[in-house]
């Protein structure tokens, strides 16, 4: 789920967007600043809706993790079945990562597309809740599948809106705000759902799948809220188009699957790092709550808090670390640091009884650092016209990895326990470590620019641009 926003930093460089909002509007009558699409005040209003557009999907994505004990008990599931809920979210996105941009640009258009994807998210969550209510696991899985169809594509739409409205100076800030909002959604979900479940249980007088269903249905109100945002946003965008004569936003993604054969070794190594790293983060967070309860004797509330710390940390850390990586360059070293730190924190969780707050905070920082340093690297090893394909492919195999490893993680936990699961995650991180070390040498031998400092990179850019003149 979180893999999608890291792309945003690049969207503003690799799009062939329509003209930005123009000031030479044809309107004659004066408007209040808040209603005038050409004024910043109005755009701040738009930004608010944009931020809440993704709130619902982020809130509901981690519902299973937030209610892990309740889902396991009320639905009488084992862990492998529980993790299928995450796998079913990822499956549609193995394909949709290639299609989302196309659908938005060519088929629906951004406004209708956003509303449609929001509807998918809403219906997915409602089906999910219904599955719990009627004690039908297959319906829950179906709900997650539908939810997955909407979720990732909605993020693409959200980015497109952002670029469309804020292209220029503010766009990075907007991306940052949207990211923080997404993290806020995840965090609020992690910490509030248990309480909501408790209240519903008190109200209904018993636990069970109906209680779970009602709780999840309440969670779906956030999706409806996001749908309303999509509708308002669509209206405002249409209105701005009318007033300012601007075009509808485009993702500008061009996906050509035949490009895959031209991918360099470096890019494949980056893919391996990406998959091997993220599969040790998201499935772990999905299973984290019970782990902290069982191993560290945490109360459910504490467990949920420590499980959400990764998201909480990454909200403020992402912009700061992003700035740091931008200023220093040397992405390979940063990625290496992030991978090693993550390995250390997983080993702490596996082999010690140290307070998990330490390990989880480390994990939060290293996860944010990796996101900032890894995703921009793609742009250095791929020609610009293939960037869309490269990112689509990266997300696609990442989702494939997440789906497979989620199921594997559940099965491992059911049969071999948490120690083995943690060792398995360590092995995944070790694979990422192997890939990054290989990437380092490949880059070194081929004289790549992945590990240049920011100043050297700037010099290189200058000389190449002067060459071309």
């Amino acid at each position, binding site marked *: 789920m979180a893999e999608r926003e890291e792309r945003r930093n690049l969207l503003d460089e690799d799009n062939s967007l329509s003209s930005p909002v123009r000031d030479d509007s044809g309107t004659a009558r004066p408007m209040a600043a808040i209603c005038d699409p050409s004024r910043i005040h109005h755009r701040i209003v738009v930004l608010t809706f944009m931020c809440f557009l993704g709130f619902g999907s982020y809130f509901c994505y981690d519902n299973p993790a937030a209610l892990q004990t309740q889902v*396991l*008990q009320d639905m*009488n*599931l*084992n*862990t492998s079945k529980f993790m299928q809920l995450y796998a079913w979210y990822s499956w549609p996105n193995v394909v949709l990562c290639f299609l989302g941009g196309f659908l938005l640009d060519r088929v629906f258009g951004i406004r209708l597309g956003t509303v449609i994807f929001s509807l998918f998210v809403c219906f997915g969550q409602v089906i999910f809740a219904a599955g719990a209510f009627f004690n039908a696991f297959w319906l829950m899985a179906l709900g997650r599948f539908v939810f997955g169809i909407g979720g990732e594509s909605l993020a693409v739409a959200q980015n497109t809106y952002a670029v469309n409205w804020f292209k220029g100076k503010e766009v990075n800030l907007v991306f940052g705000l949207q990211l923080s909002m997404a993290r806020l959604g995840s965090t609020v979900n992690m910490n509030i759902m248990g309480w909501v479940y408790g209240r519903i249980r008190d109200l209904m007088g018993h*636990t069970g799948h109906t209680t779970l269903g009602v709780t999840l249905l309440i969670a779906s109100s956030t999706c409806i809220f996001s749908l309303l945002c999509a509708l308002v946003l669509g209206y405002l965008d249409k209105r701005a188009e009318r007033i300012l004569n601007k075009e509808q936003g485009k993702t500008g993604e061009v996906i050509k699957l035949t490009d895959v054969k031209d991918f360099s070794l470096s890019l494949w190594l980056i893919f391996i790092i990406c998959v091997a790293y993220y599969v040790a983060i998201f499935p772990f967070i999905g299973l984290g709550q*019970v782990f902290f309860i*069982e*191993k560290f004797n945490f109360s459910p509330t504490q467990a949920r808090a420590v499980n959400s710390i990764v998201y909480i940390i990454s909200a403020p850390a992402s912009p700061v670390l992003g700035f740091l990586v931008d200023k220093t360059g040397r992405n390979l070293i940063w990625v290496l640091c992030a991978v090693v730190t993550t390995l250390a924190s997983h080993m702490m969780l*596996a*082999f*010690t*009884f140290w307070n998990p707050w330490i390990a989880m905070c480390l994990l939060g920082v290293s996860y944010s650092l990796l996101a900032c340093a890894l995703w921009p690297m793609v742009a250095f090893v791929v020609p610009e016209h293939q960037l869309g394909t490269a990112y689509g492919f990266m997300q696609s195999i990442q989702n494939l990895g997440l789906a497979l490893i989620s199921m594997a993680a559940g099965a491992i*936990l*059911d*049969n*071999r*326990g*948490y*120690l*083995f699961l943690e*060792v*398995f995650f*360590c*092995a995944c991180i*070790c*694979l990422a*470590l*192997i890939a990054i*070390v*290989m990437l*380092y*040498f490949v880059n*070194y*031998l081929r004289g790549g620019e992945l590990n240049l400092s920011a100043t050297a990179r700037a010099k290189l850019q200058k000389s190449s641009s002067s060459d071309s003149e």
Partner: protein
Amino acid sequence: MAATVQLARTHLMLLLLFLILQLVSGFILDSDDYRRRVSLELNPGLNSSVPPGVSLLHIQARGASDTLHFLFCSLGAPTLLLVHTNSTSSSVKVDWPQFLSKNDSGSLQVEPKSSMLYSSALVFTRLWEYEDVNNTADPQNMPSSSFFPPYELQSFTWGDLNKTLNSTTRTAQLCGGDGNSSFSNGSLCLAISAFESVGRDHIWPRLLHNANSSQVHVWLKGVTARSNYSRFSLELQTVGSRELPSRVDVVRSIDDEYTPSIFQVSEWVSSPVNSTSPVLGYSQWKPVAYRTVAHNLEGATPCRHSSPQPMAELPPSGLVKAYFGNGYQTSGLNITFGIAGDPFYGVTNYLSWTVLVGLGSPPIDSFSPLVIVIMAVGLGTPMVLILLGGVCVCIRKRQAEPLAYEPIN
């Protein structure tokens, strides 16, 4: 054809992996490969027949210089007696008429008496049932009105050990009930296993056992609960020397490989007052019970124990009365199954719990070879890569260096 080649290759790979594992496990586990010769004998020294429901199983585990006697008996409350002697020829003598009359200490003896080093008994005395209306699973803070009259295991009718005795697997099983309606379709069973060497069961909790231990698996199956909110707890008592006070240690372990999601081991040990001296005997269990016949994660339910209390008199066990005289003390505790919010007994009508009884210090779990191999390969490969890559880079630099000093023409 291709398939067979593939299959053969897979087999070869598996074999290779197995060999590596064997090698590694050899390094790790060779510290504890002590073996004993185990023999099982039912009702030793008995010529006539015993009254129904009484049987005495004698498990003799002979080592290089000592002998362990495990005696498991259903006369009175089910009891496992452990006697350690420093002689390889010690034997058990039972005065059967006296033994069956249950009132004479000394009717069961291990001879020669001078060879006796250590003895202790674990007695399963009572099964408590209580109505947990508020779903707190905390019988210690519950009004006595919540408790049903306990099942006294001494008054149970037990089956015949002879029918379930299996000399090859070294197991025997004792099932019984109180004859009333609750037990009409169900029973409380105790299965004892003896071991020649180190190993584990196939089913969870997969306690690590060795040649100095035997295991009792207790389960309660198909018993009609007396309330919809029924939970059970089991009362255990140990009898041991007065100089060896008993205590329960809860040891945390990072290793839950064999008992997923359980990171603790409880050890009821008897050791001399001087705390530095070693533990002489133990009962060890993991704080988990299973509510389903297939022991798995969904069916796992935590269990807790109360702190051991000294008891005024010896437990109602024929074996204890026949073997122990004066100078012995009894202490008891309750194992409570389930925690607040867990399903009640009636949901599955099954409850299972396992305890290991043995001599010396309790066995300690260690990482499985697989875990060690994964971590070694996972951490080793990047290191090797860094070294190799570093060397390669250095060599290239060396080769490139002369070029740098070439005169510029």
